[in-house]
């Protein structure tokens, strides 16, 4: 148990620092500190704005089996349930070219509507829907991207995670192979971890 004296001594020091002059001076110094460091601040951006750009890169660095691509002009990127991008996907990727295809964003209310999607994003809020979604997809050539803790263990292919407020991702190679998807070595190199039979890193 902490003793009395330490607490009271601290209180009197704090009381002194609360004198109006000291307070005003501290405020001024802190203000300068604030202005100085904000000028030197690093680049910051909204999480989902950056994740939208990641999805675009994923689409370029994954090879789909030819029969899955040939039949379609549009590359459908789908979100399931709650859409955390709030318009960022449309503004970042809609209409961009992925090989011979054009990217098109679709927001699905129900997991049942996944037909036609080449990449599916299921956000944090949809953690409970994931096993149903993956069961529904089976071995269809669809890149599943998620955020929940056990997304890869449940059979998802790419999982976003944050490390010191920077975006990282993990890959489940087994799941990718089952879906007949080839993930480029560049993407595998950048992944924070890769699980699957080609040797975990």
């Amino acid at each position, binding site marked *: 148990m902490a003793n009395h004296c330490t607490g009271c001594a601290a209180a009197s020091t704090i*009381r002194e620092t609360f004198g109006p002059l000291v307070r005003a001076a501290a405020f001024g110094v802190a203000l300068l500190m604030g202005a100085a460091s904000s000028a030197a601040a690093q680049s*910051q951006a909204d999480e989902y704005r950056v994740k939208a750009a990641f999805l675009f890169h994923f689409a370029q660095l994954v090879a789909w089996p030819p029969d899955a691509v040939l039949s379609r002009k549009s590359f459908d990127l789908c979100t399931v349930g709650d859409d955390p991008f709030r318009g960022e996907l449309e503004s970042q990727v809609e209409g961009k070219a992925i090989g011979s295809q054009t990217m098109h964003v679709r927001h699905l209310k129900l997991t049942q509507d996944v037909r036609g999607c080449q990449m599916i994003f299921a956000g944090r809020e949809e953690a409970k829907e994931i096993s149903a979604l993956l069961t529904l997809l089976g071995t269809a050539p669809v890149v599943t991207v998620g955020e929940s803790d056990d997304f890869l263990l449940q059979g998802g292919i790419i999982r976003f995670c944050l490390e010191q407020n920077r975006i990282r991702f993990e890959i489940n190679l087994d799941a990718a192979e089952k879906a007949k998807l080839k993930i480029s070595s560049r993407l595998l190199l950048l992944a924070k971890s890769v699980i699957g039979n080609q040797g975990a890193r």
Partner: protein
Amino acid sequence: MNFLLALSLISTVVISTAGLAWPQENSADLTARSLEDLMNIEVTSVSKKEQKLSQTASAIFVITTDEIKRSGARTIPDLLRMVPGMDVAQISSNVWAISARGFNGEFADKLLVMVDGRSVFLPTFSGVFWDTVDLPFEDIERIEVIRGPGGTIWGANAVNGVINIITKNGSETRGGLIVAEGGNLTHGAETLQYGGNFRNTNYRIFTRHFDQSHLPGLVLPDGQDQWHLWHGGFRSDSRVSAKDDLTVEGDLYTGYFSDLTHSLTSFASPIQGTAILQNYVGGGFLQTDWNRRYSASSETKLQISFDDYARNDNLREERKTINIDFQHRFAAGTRHDFVWGVDYRYSVSATGGNLRISLIPPDRNTNLYSAFIQDEMALIPDRLALTIGTKLEHNYYTGFGAMPSARVAWTVRRHHTVWGAVSRALDTPSAVDASINLNVAGFFLPNGTPAVVRVLGNPKLLDETLLAYEAGYRAQLLKSLSLDIAAYFNSYSQVASLEPAARFLETTPGPPHLVVPSMYENLIKGNTRGVETALHWKVNERWTLAPAYAFQQFDLSTEPRSLDTQTVNDIKGSSPQHWARLGSDLKLFRSLSWDASGNFVGRLKSQGIPSYVRADSQLTWSAGESLSFSLVGQNLLRDRHLEFSSQLSSALSGYMKRSAYAKLTWTF
């Protein structure tokens, strides 16, 4: 005027900062960047909850886990002091007056308080005994505070505000926890907790004790208001199936506290006296929550709770309550999000009472049932939402009442939301309102006959009704600066007044005495209005400032036939007109942080309490994830000041004094 100085300082700071440019990535096309580049961008995250909150059409404020950790607060009422415009006043060591948007008092009856959706609001006097609203702070995920009515979902008594304390899921509190604190007011407080998991269940179990010292009293140097509480509880969260989640939680507590009261002791001489009451409290609850998700757009919640409490104070009440609540949320098409629910509550109360206070009849069993429906319509998806709904509730005293509301939220552009709402709320009578027999004071007539001033409940009392008009604006002005403004115009009718009734001679208990009674009647009406503003400014990576200011004004009057000259003044003079706060959170080094706050509270006219500034400070040193040590100082500016002193309080007020404590938190 301290607050004016603070405000002008704040506005200067804000204006001078607005000129600074922040490097932002939001205008660029990020897909042109390489993956390596993207991996280097620091991202700012807005959770779904925050996003929802920023678009909510009500004056909601959330106290987060992090803010709780840094607050230096010892009690839940202390935590609520950071909510813009919240009226938090401590009466004595163990008694608080807490309200929002006026009508404050020890028995403030217009604020609904819940823990994990279970009401801890007591129907006896429609208020909360804050001394038993106790939780280990480490287990609180967040506290959601809504200023303004919430009757459409939560029912009667969610009139001026709703507080919901939400505890953490078992998966977030795995491992051991030891918290120990001590200081000049808290002689000791300890929490022991263990959290683990078994198959698909995460659980925790805790025990807690604290020993709180007395404050200097208004009439005696020792206010005799010390209190002690032992508290143990558990929570378990199970994933029963892919669709079903089951939460079971419960607790038991027992404690004792003293109160210094000045009241009627007999009808003979000495008719009044100061007495120290030793009160025992005990109780507990058990609650289960079953959530089932049918699909992403349909889910149900069933909550069943049982609550038992006994309080050995003047009234000596024992109450058992069972509550069953069912809610179903579902999306209809892409535009409608419906939620509807039914609720049933059965409460059994038995009271003892004494010469000072009793209920007539002393025992009462009450039923409460209600149903509500609400539709959130996306008129323009993610831009314009209209929420309309109503609750129909039946209570024991006044029967059926409807609490409809309409709310609009317009997201003008990303991070800028304007909202407005019109709602009706009801404050239904409590057991005290309907059946109290309170002997407030005694005196002798010139001829030597004893006389007693008595407050009588009125079984025919009607609901107090509120029609509230609210508007607000929430904006992310800069990457680092957000603003929240809410304004309200509340129109009340049928508010309870205390009307003199015919005097009579009472012979039992003897000796014969004259009774000067007054009785509750619904004869006050009028309106209140106010503005609450809050800024959240992340000055830099290390420093956050949170200034807030609130203003409120009451325009209430009695009906012409009323003879009550006191109540209106009491209501007006028990809440401050101006309120301001500056909170600061500074990370000094990687492991050392300093948090400080100053609250300005305007004077309480009817109580003769001058305005004051209260300053609290916390210095925290963290050794890694598992160990932290903090030194906290509270009420640092002045050693003796009153926060609240109402004639209607049961306990005599105590002076707030300068205090300090040290706290050690160890997780393993």
